[in-house]
């Protein structure tokens, strides 16, 4: 399927250069994502009646008699020490490496009707008020896959977490994984000829080559990237271009998701992409909705494991303000995708990302390594 792509891209190079200058004809457009963030609109005044969740430190302080509390609250070092260990030698003892083995301490989630952005089957975004989605029956999920709107149920899980509010840690470090070179995501779009509406083919792949940052601190356009060799990080989708908007049908997406202490994968199932390309700048923006596989979600967002298997989950949970088992069980409760035929429990949860991308050259690299994919490893 990928034969000749590199050659085609070389041909497209001149046309891509022309795009920036205002031309609209192009065969294949390449991009590198310059921004990729979860849509976390912030909790409304009614959304979290019990307040925000608390992390390990806050819970510890709450457990102390008032006379003791002040001593720890005023001394971060002492507080930190009291919560040790933050990193566990034995994963069995780590509430973040093995959250399912610990009791549910509870987690406040947004459980009432919520007006949140969701992606409709045609790729448009709607924002009607609705109660939490329920885990559907297996047959229903499969049968309605083509016509179902994709919620952002993950926001319901994280909506009452301080670190996920617009001024929280998550926003402060948004895209740092792109800027520091940990994660590079590439996108190619085969456009209809002559700028016409019609079917489009898309490829989304990971690269292990970092973006180049300009003197303004932003990823530079027109850099060349090789895709990674592992085929599982090469994803394809088909869609339609109508006017300025490209919308895809459902596709499964696997990408490398790495950050400072994280070496994981983003695995979205039945994802949909909505993209708009600015003909003047050649830049793209849009949304990616889909169902985040709970096992990979836990790997990337609860266990937060690096290549050695070490978990940074506990300090992360404490920074944001939640507990790992609390999040784990909340995810199980609010999961709304891909019900397991045997248990009937949902194995994925809907999520919505916004993205921006700058023009880039996407070059192939042949597969040289055996495939490995096991979130439990």
């Amino acid at each position, binding site marked *: 399927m990928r034969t000749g792509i590199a050659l085609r891209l070389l041909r497209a*190079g001149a046309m891509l250069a022309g795009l920036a200058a*205002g031309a609209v004809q192009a065969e294949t457009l390449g991009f590198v994502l310059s921004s990729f963030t979860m849509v976390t609109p912030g909790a409304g005044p009614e959304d979290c009646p019990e307040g925000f969740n608390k992390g390990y430190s806050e819970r510890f302080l709450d457990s102390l008699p008032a006379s003791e509390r002040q001593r720890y609250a005023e001394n971060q070092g002492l507080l930190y020490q009291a919560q040790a260990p933050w990193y566990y030698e034995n994963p069995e003892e780590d509430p973040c490496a093995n959250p399912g083995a610990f009791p549910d301490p509870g987690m406040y989630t947004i459980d009432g009707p919520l007006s949140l952005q969701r992606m409709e089957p045609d790729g448009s975004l709607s924002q009607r008020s609705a109660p939490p989605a329920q885990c559907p029956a297996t047959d229903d999920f499969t049968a309605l896959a083509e016509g179902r709107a994709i919620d952002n149920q993950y926001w319901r899980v994280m909506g009452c977490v301080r670190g996920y509010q617009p001024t929280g840690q998550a926003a402060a470090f948004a895209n740092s994984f792109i800027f520091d070179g940990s994660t590079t995501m590439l996108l190619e779009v085969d456009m209809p000829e002559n700028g016409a509406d019609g079917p489009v083919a898309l490829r989304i792949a990971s690269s292990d080559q970092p973006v*180049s940052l300009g003197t303004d601190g932003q990823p*530079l356009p027109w*850099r*060349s990237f090789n895709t990674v060799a592992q085929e599982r990080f090469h994803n394809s989708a088909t869609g339609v271009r109508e006017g300025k908007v490209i919308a895809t049908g459902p596709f499964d997406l696997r990408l490398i998701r790495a950050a400072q202490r994280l070496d994981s994968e983003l695995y979205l199932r039945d994802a949909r992409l909505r993209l708009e390309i600015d003909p003047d700048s050649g830049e793209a923006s849009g949304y990616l909705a889909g169902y985040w596989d709970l096992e990979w979600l836990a790997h990337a967002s609860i266990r937060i494991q690096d290549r050695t298997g070490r978990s940074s989950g506990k300090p992360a949970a404490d920074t944001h303000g939640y507990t790992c088992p609390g999040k784990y069980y909340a995810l199980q409760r609010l999961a709304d995708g891909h019900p397991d035929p045997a248990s009937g429990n949902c194995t994925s949860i809907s999520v919505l990302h916004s993205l921006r991308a700058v*023009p880039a050259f996407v*070059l192939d690299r042949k597969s040289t390594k055996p495939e490995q994919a096991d979130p439990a490893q």
Partner: protein
Amino acid sequence: MPVLHRVKRSLILLGVCLPLSQTALSSVEASADNQRVVGMKRLTESQYRNSVADIFGHSIELYGRFEPDYRQARLLAVGSAVTSVSPSGYEQYDIMARGIAKQVVAEEGREQFLSCDPLADACIDEVIQHYGSQLFRRPLSRAEQDQRVAVAEEVMAKGGDHYQALEYALASLLVSPEFLFRVERVEPVPEHPDEARLTAWSRASRLSYFLWNSTPDAELLAAAERGDLYTRQGLEAQVHRLLESPRLEPGMRAFFADMLRFDTFDELSKDAALYPVFTAEVAEAMQEQTLLTMNEHLLQENASYRELFTRRAMPMNRALGMVYAVPVQSSDDWEPYEFAEEGNRAGLLSQASLLSLRAHAGSSSPTLRGLYLRETFLCQTIPPPPADVDFTLDEAFAKLPTARERLLRHRKESTCAACHHLMDPIGLTLEQFDGVGMFRTRENGALIDTRGELDGRQLGDAKALGQALSEHDGVPACLVDTLLRYALSAPDLRHQRRALDSLQQAFSDSGYRFRDLLWQIATSETFYAVPESQGASS
């Protein structure tokens, strides 16, 4: 200023700086014998670095700052013949000399750098002789040798060990004007004692720094010692060897960089918001791309110099791929790239290095580009703007969307037009390249008009300019002038008119092959001639 005056001024400056310079002073005068100093050319930074690397090896690190090189008559190489050393500059040379000497005698380097044990008899003498002849590019005189031995003995008398003694002796060689300058001497011609000729050692240095931008190697020094460089056959054998050496390419990079004024890249800055792509990596790659192009075209392919202005192939790397908006397969290396025939770029003038170098921090500049092109590729001189020019008038024009419109004033004001008509119409053909050389078709939303003119020839765009230059007789003539000026470090070639004519004819006859021109110059009598004012013996 007469050469000997300059020598004297240099040495006086050196003499007041550091004790070692007393040795230095005497070393230049010591070898007077039947020879006379007729020229001193301060090593440029790159020549100093190359010389140290060639003598001691590339592992030697330099600690210290170089004084800025001085550009005269378009070239740093020319400036090197009129520059001296300031007290602070000499202090830096001293720091570097001590650092080099320390590394040479350091325990980990001894096996590599020392051929004998300094504790053994005559070893210090031997090492001084060995390195001295390489650093001075000629054998040391007995007096020079004795002075260094005396330095070593003084160190030991004060409690230093043999290695420290050697270290100081080596350092004294490294701060000598005989090393810091290319000291050129003449001697009487044996058959005609009233006539002078450049000594064989001076010939070897001239040749080596011209072609390799570094010190003569052992073989060239040996040829000088045998007197080969006085014979046509011997000289040609050495020139041939130097031209065929892989060291020619790095040597010629120095010429290309000097000619194109790449030293000014160090002070080039661009608006970070307008040109985010202009990172340090990109700026370095821009220079490298042009130097690689010239090496490839002029040396490896030995193609016509004229075709350099229409060549569509150029090396590319990923950093530059972002400037040219082209894909680059290799993630960490250079690879060939050829722009399409119908594309927007061709020739040296469309390379980002030249386009960036002659532009403002926040915009392109047809004037600066036109000026650069006239000076660099046509060897023409454009006078600076008159002192009473009223820049405030430009504000009314500044709001206009394109450079062509903004420069309208230059054409309307007669005092401006006289010179600007020589620059602006050339630069306007390059306006589809912004301040860092990225392609564009609009400026501030308005379509860019790239029509221009060069010496009466109407041009449609940058490619037409490249074509016009490739056909312009002034372009190869200018290269000959610049290369001879570079080879001789001569600010004035008025006395070389006949030689220039002859070289230009030979260049033309060769099909404008750069290698042939190098050969012509390196084997010419002009190249080894005694400077006009120094010819007669005195």
